[in-house]
């Protein structure tokens, strides 16, 4: 047990000494600051702590639109940054860990001091999880402070974004570990994992769409209209990490219910005469709309279990492979 902890903390130190780590931290801070720099004044909206202001007749201090704006932005930041994008960045560091450990000069040092190879694998993996948790925690804490400061709403459920982010990261990291054991090459492991992650996001996104809409691209439309295409797609995507449902589920658990629709707020957005908001909602609509089947607690639990199961099985495969090979 103490060896597992030693390996995890060593992995964390190793990863935190990288320049990529600081990029991740600074990006998290920048994202939070960008959100926090927004404020509503009696005469409208201002960005960059008052650097740039947009006069508005409705988006003013104390109006329901103010709450709508903040809730909407914070929810999407939690969803897209903490759960969606930050794990990708952490993956860049994580993918190099196993291949480095398996290089013969290092393997000889580490593996001969442990009770088994699985222990080393798990220690490295857990260290990676801790590593990914840092920017997630910073972002979540930043958003928590922002909401409290700007609106006086102290929503501790924002920290729920962290376990969701870790759940997704764990799935991707497990794939990176497996590929690391398989290929012993950092770049191959990283490239293939990224490819996998992007495909899973796209696949789950496609599988969660209820029906083809006219303005969607041709390929998706074709896939859906083919007889049983959607069913086939959904059963293919079933055992894969449930990116879509997890992001969606986290958003629901946050419970930041705004008095008005964020979508309507965006739709109203104009720059001069340009109706930017209306155009933007058109494009984003698909992502924002609730799926045909609402995400029930049961469905969310299933998504969590399937994703966790995917990670465990992938790790198990990696451990079996590692135990078989010569170091």
């Amino acid at each position, binding site marked *: 047990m*103490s*060896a597992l*902890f*030693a*390996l995890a*903390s*060593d992995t964390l*130190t*190793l990863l935190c*000494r990288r320049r990529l780590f600081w990029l991740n931290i600074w990006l998290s801070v920048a994202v939070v600051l960008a959100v926090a720099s927004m404020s509503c004044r009696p005469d409208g909206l201002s960005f960059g702590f008052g650097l740039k202001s947009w006069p508005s007749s409705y988006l003013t201090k104390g109006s329901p639109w103010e709450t709508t704006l903040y809730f909407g932005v914070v929810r999407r930041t939690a969803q897209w940054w903490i759960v969606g994008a930050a794990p990708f960045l952490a993956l860049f560091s994580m993918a190099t860990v196993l291949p480095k450990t398996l*290089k*013969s*000069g*290092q*393997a*000889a*040092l*580490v*593996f*001969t*001091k*442990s*009770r*088994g*190879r*699985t222990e080393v694998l798990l220690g490295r993996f857990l260290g990676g999880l801790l590593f990914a948790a840092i920017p997630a925690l910073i972002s979540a804490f930043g958003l928590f402070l922002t909401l409290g400061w700007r609106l006086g709403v102290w929503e501790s459920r924002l920290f729920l974004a962290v376990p969701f982010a870790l759940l997704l990261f764990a799935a991707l990291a497990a794939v990176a570990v497996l590929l690391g054991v398989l290929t012993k090459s950092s770049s191959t492991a990283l490239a293939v994992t990224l490819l996998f992650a992007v495909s899973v996001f796209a696949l789950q996104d496609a599988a969660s769409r209820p029906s083809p809409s006219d303005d969607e691209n041709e390929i998706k439309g074709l896939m859906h209209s083919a007889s049983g295409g959607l069913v086939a797609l959904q059963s293919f995507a079933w055992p894969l990490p449930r990116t879509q449902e997890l992001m969606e589920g986290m958003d629901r658990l946050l419970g930041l219910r705004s008095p008005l629709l964020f979508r309507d707020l965006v739709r109203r957005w104009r720059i001069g005469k340009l109706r930017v908001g209306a155009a933007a909602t058109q494009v984003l609509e698909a992502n924002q709309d609730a799926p045909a089947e609402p995400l029930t607690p049961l469905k969310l639990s299933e998504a969590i279990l399937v994703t966790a199961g995917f990670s465990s099985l992938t790790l198990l495969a990696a451990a079996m492979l590692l*135990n*078989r090979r*010569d*170091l």
Partner: protein
Amino acid sequence: MTRRPASPNLPPMAALKSIEFAIDLKSLSKVYPNGVQALDHLSLRVRRGEIYGLLGPNGAGKSTLIKCLTGLVHPTACRGSVLGFPVGDPEVNRLLGYLPENASWPEHLTAEQVLHFAGRLHGLVSRERTRRVRELLLLTGLEAWSHDRPQHFSKGMRQRLGVAYALMGNPELIFLDEPTDGVDPVGRKEMRDLIRGLKREGKTVFVNSHLLDELEIICDRMAILMRGRVVRHGSLEELTLESCRYEIAVVGNLLEDPGLLDLVQRLGGTVALGPEALESRIDLPTRRPQLVQPVIDALRQEGYLLLSVAPARQSLEDLFLEAIRSGGQFAQREPRD
């Protein structure tokens, strides 16, 4: 990994005391996936508390043997045990120390942190760990560099750090793979002293080397490995005794004395002339003094002046070169112990 039947549930030290051989290999073979047969039905026994040297040219399979014994490489077939545990059992790891051939130290840690890491892997608590780290830094003479990163170390310092790392868990059996390769003479001497110190503490040390003189000086017993097989083994005494000869030096040219030449040749010996044919040297391939007497008698009868009669041992180097020349064609003998 397939766990073999549980290791004896005795307290480790008590169980260990009853073991005579730290390493007891009856037959170990390793064929790498690329088809290279690195070890070929190798058998070997290392007594507890001795310094055992494994000598062999590059590519003989020395490192592969250590990797098999430390569980890094899976043998293709194996009968044998390490400290009473089946070969490859990860449970034995806590009793082993290993200095790998080409240790690459983590870039994010200083020498001291590396040792702390090893201590944590061994499950040492903070207090004990700090004490042990200081002890080992002192032992290996690295105190002054404890806050430097090992990448900046000289080869000798890196090897000493490797020994400290290997000794962290106070192991019973220590494997050193080419500990003095690329190390300067002073460093070599320090390494030898370190190894002797380990023996005094009752540890078993298994040293791999392609450097003959190193092993000659420190090892109690040794084996010569060729193409994955042990071709000779025993103490330095035994190894060189097997090839003991008698040398007789006399004044005069024996090549001009057919009678004596005939006698020497009947005994399987040879005669060589010294400089300017003033002296002759008789070389008799025997280690029994009785067989030398007839030659001495004959020489005295003929009135030759005897300069010296002495047993001459083949050096380990000669033996090693002979082993290499014969391409590992020696039959492998069973361990005698």
